[in-house]
């Protein structure tokens, strides 16, 4: 057991490929806990704060300093709420619908490559698996809408299934044009594996976003629009349009079941963001890995995780100092100070690892430093996408349903098809 535990540290392939069940299980647990916590606490808090500031409000301020503990209070409230199943609902399907959505959005994390060996498994059909399983998420919405046996949820479910099926087409074509680019190597054979796609970008020395400019950008923009529609987020959130359908497909849901839908939605948002990051933004690669290489640059870039945590800690400390001196704020000030200290300690730890493990990729410290770098750059890119989701929600009004269908079929589909054909032609010409 101990040997198996240590053996993985030297491995350069994901545990799923090395046949290392123990580490695969550990990875699955880490991912499950980390994703749930990020969605429940961090993303929930950041979204509410960001939306509030967009609208010149303060957002949650009462529970914990700057509302930092508000998500926990909400989670507790949702857990204690009465769980209502409507009398006329189809009980079994009503019960199972949120689970379908949750299973679909968490299963895709198996193939997400946080690093060359920091993934549960590297499937040969990685991207196909991700698209397939994330398209199963719509089944949760459809069955929830139907099982509620009520008009608004049914309308929401119908809208959502029509929307997802039509945007999947443009999304798939955009993905194919990125996969085509992986085949521009000496063997002429591309790959569908998520890790293989990132390695292809490293070999070709360019993120696929900038490849064959502007073809890569076009495919990326199509995907970035389609993924917002796929996850039912504003401005494409017609399935839960509150001004028309109360709350859409989850009108009849309350308490814990409702929160499962939210968890599934946000987990799916992170999953599609990581597809975009893997396909077009170089996955775990740091900026300019081929141009700025060598031990010195390696060391400078490995300081980034620690420094960013240090910046967060500094913000928390500034907040502590600026807190009003009234005795009412005493507890909040202590809380924010402790939070800042935790961040500062994390920053220190990361900096020490970066310092000890510099110029080394064999020993434990070196492996750890490498892993932290990969995961940091990957998560940074995903975080940018998550922020974009909030930004869209605060900025754009919701589309009408006919406008949505028109954009999907008459604008995005032809453009993505054209980009795919152009990519294929340019790829042949370049060779």
């Amino acid at each position, binding site marked *: 057991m101990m040997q198996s535990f240590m053996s993985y540290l030297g491995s*350069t392939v994901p545990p799923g*490929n090395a046949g290392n069940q123990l580490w695969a299980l550990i990875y699955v647990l880490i991912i499950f806990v980390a994703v749930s916590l990020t969605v429940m606490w961090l993303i929930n808090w950041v979204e509410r704060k960001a939306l509030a500031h967009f609208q010149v409000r303060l957002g949650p301020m009462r529970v914990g300093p700057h509302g930092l503990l508000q998500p926990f209070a909400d989670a507790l409230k949702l857990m204690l709420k009465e769980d209502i199943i409507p009398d006329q609902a*189809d009980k079994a399907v009503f019960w199972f619908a949120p689970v379908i959505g949750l299973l679909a959005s968490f299963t895709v994390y198996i193939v997400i490559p946080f690093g060359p060996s920091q993934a549960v498994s590297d499937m040969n059909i990685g991207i196909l698996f991700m*698209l397939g399983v994330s398209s199963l998420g719509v*089944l949760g919405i*459809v069955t929830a809408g139907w099982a509620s046996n009520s008009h608004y949820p049914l309308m929401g479910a*119908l809208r959502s299934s029509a929307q997802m099926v039509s945007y999947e087409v443009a999304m798939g074509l955009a993905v194919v044009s990125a996969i085509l680019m992986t085949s521009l190597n000496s063997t002429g054979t591309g790959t*569908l594996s998520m890790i293989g796609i990132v390695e292809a970008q490293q070999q070709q020395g360019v993120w696929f976003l900038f490849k064959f400019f502007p073809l890569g950008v076009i495919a990326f923009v199509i995907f970035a629009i389609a993924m917002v529609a796929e996850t039912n987020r504003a401005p494409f959130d017609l399935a839960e349009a509150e001004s028309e359908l109360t709350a859409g497909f989850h009108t009849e849901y309350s308490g814990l079941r409702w929160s499962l839908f939210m968890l599934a939605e946000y987990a799916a948002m992170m999953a599609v963001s990581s597809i975009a990051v893997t396909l077009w933004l170089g996955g775990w690669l740091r900026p300019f890995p081929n141009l700025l290489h060598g031990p010195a640059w390696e060391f400078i870039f490995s300081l980034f995780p620690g420094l960013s945590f240090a910046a967060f800690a500094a913000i928390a400390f500034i907040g502590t100092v600026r807190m009003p001196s009234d005795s009412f704020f005493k507890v909040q000030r202590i809380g924010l100070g402790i939070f800042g200290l935790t961040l500062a300690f994390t920053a220190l730890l990361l900096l020490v690892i970066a310092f000890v493990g510099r110029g080394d990729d064999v020993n434990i410290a070196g492996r750890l430093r490498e892993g932290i770098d990969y995961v940091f750059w990957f998560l940074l890119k995903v975080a940018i996408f998550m922020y974009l989701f909030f930004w869209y929600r605060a900025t754009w009004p919701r589309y009408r349903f006919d406008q949505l269908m028109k954009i999907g079929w008459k604008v995005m589909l032809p453009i993505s098809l054209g980009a795919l054909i152009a990519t294929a032609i340019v790829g042949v010409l370049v060779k």
Partner: protein
Amino acid sequence: MNPAINVGAAPLATPWFFYGLAAAAVVSGLLVITRRNAVHSALALIVTLLSVAGLYLMLYAPFVAGVQIIVYAGGIMVLFLFVIMLVNIERVAKERQFNRIWPVGLLASCALFALFVGAFIKGKSVLPQRMIQLPEAMNTQAIGGALYGEAGRMGLYTFAFEIASLLLLVAILGAVIMTKKKI
């Protein structure tokens, strides 16, 4: 490009995986034909399709498994549900089945069962004992070669594949013309 896969390790896909997936496929397949509620049948069909996808994975055909999930479970079944959801379930549940097609179905399934039994008993002498096992990474590439051809040559199934796509195009055009009298 793909990191070396540990060939020497014991395969994770043991016979128990097969028994589990096969049992899930059979049980949910039975549910598809015995449920009166059409939505329940459709959901059971999704379980069947997913367990068949798992069986494809066990046969070292990951690409087929992925396509099975995307096309059938994620695409076609969503459209199925889309239509079925609009049906008045209560009325349908009371209605008696009016087609008399079950003898044909029984005959067909008996024939299929006989075929399976025959393959099980005499299979060893008729079918090749062992297929050449391609490494998992080659599967997608091999399918691509068979469908589209490699190195300037036409693939084994290129012609059939293109004909099938033409058939689908005709079906799509037919559907459009039937719904829209004036185009």
